[in-house]
């Protein structure tokens, strides 16, 4: 009997620190599998953010750095410039990337740094206990929008792919979701593309994962996926925003 699916080599044998049903784990797996498939493990490295995935540096079985909140793209820039022979990614949440780290992601993208950014959008600050994120949906209740996000007062969710897509340099930008198995399979393809481009030194690649936070949404894992499909997807539409690697690909 042949093994057709098992823990990838690039994941260390430690339990994730995530809550039951949190899709951070799936995003990790997709990256690890792809690193294995592309044979990148020996020159791979990544940057963990501050957020629930802060411990990502413990989970991947290659050298890793942990960055200050929001600064992963700057840290990755320093890393890639210091050792261009290595392949570098960042892994960031929506608070990390779209709030405090706005300047760093915009400018890393604008410079076209040769890194891959994996952005997990769960519309909330998970780690700190469910505060509002820039991606929190209008009307959504969080511990810092206890009466629901009031778009008239504090605006609408930030769509990061759309925003980065106004820049010239990025090579590949796609939004995927982790809300069902078929979508996870699609997401895997996106990760493969991003890391392949990364391997080939094409430029800046960016994947947004629409994900869940069962704990802070107060929903069980299965309902969380349903909720995200109904509420997040209409606002954060999956799709390829930019792919300089395909003929006819946007831009």
């Amino acid at each position, binding site marked *: 009997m042949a093994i057709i699916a098992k823990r990838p080599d690039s994941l260390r044998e430690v339990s994730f620190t995530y809550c039951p049903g949190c899709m951070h784990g799936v995003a990790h797996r997709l990256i690890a599998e792809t690193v294995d498939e592309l044979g990148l493990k020996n020159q791979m490295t990544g940057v963990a953010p501050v957020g629930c995935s802060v411990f990502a540096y413990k989970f991947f079985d290659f050298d890793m750095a942990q960055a200050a909140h929001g600064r992963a793209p700057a840290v990755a820039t320093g890393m890639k410039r210091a050792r261009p022979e290595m392949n570098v990614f960042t892994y960031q949440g929506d608070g990390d990337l779209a709030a405090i780290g706005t300047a760093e992601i915009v400018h890393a993208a604008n410079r076209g740094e040769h890194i891959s950014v994996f952005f997990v959008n769960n519309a909330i600050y998970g*780690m700190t206990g469910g505060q509002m994120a820039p991606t929190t949906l209008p009307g959504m209740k969080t511990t810092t929008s206890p009466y629901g996000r009031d778009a008239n007062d504090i605006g609408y969710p930030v769509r990061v792919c759309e925003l980065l897509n106004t820049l010239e340099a990025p090579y590949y930008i796609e939004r995927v979701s982790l809300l069902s198995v078929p979508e996870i399979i699609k997401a895997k393809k996106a990760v493969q593309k991003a890391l392949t481009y990364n391997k080939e030194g094409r430029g800046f690649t960016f994947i947004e994962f629409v994900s869940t936070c069962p704990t802070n949404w107060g929903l069980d894992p299965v309902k969380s996926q349903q909720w995200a499909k109904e509420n997040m997807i209409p606002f954060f539409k999956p799709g390829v925003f930019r792919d300089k690697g395909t003929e006819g690909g946007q831009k």
Partner: protein
Amino acid sequence: MKSEMIFSGFGGQGALAIGKFIAQSAMSEGKNVSWLPSYGPEMRGGTANVSVVVSDTEIASPVVSFPHIMVALNQPSLDKFGPSVKANGLIVVNEDLCPNVVKRDGVDYVVAPLNKISKEIGDDKVLNMIAIGIIIEKTNIIKYDTLADHLTSFLKDRNAELLALNLEAIKKGMELAR
């Protein structure tokens, strides 16, 4: 008189609330109190615990290293805090989630299947109230009436049913400890 306590269990079992009810009632009875939770990411799936001090005089350190009273709602809690309970102290153990109870000499134990009992009462969530009942019966930290008043004023209009269940659970605990 100063009593130091630790209440501990999985997140969601209500260990922190035990502390809160006891502190609140003791405060109503004119005591000085402090309530200090453990916090942080280890809460997730791990063990949540709280240190409570009730005292007639000003409370200096709110950090409890050697409790007089300890409630262990699960095995890791018992393993972690059981050994540091003071001589002549009290340990309340939730038998259902503590398969492995090794009793220390000179420490009073109440070992009861809290999950089972609370299910019998009709609501999983009152598990922690049983533990409080045990403490009320075994010690004079707080009076039943104080807590009952407190719960009544808080719950009567909002959820009379839950109030009844809670009071039943406390009484059940008191019985158990007799």
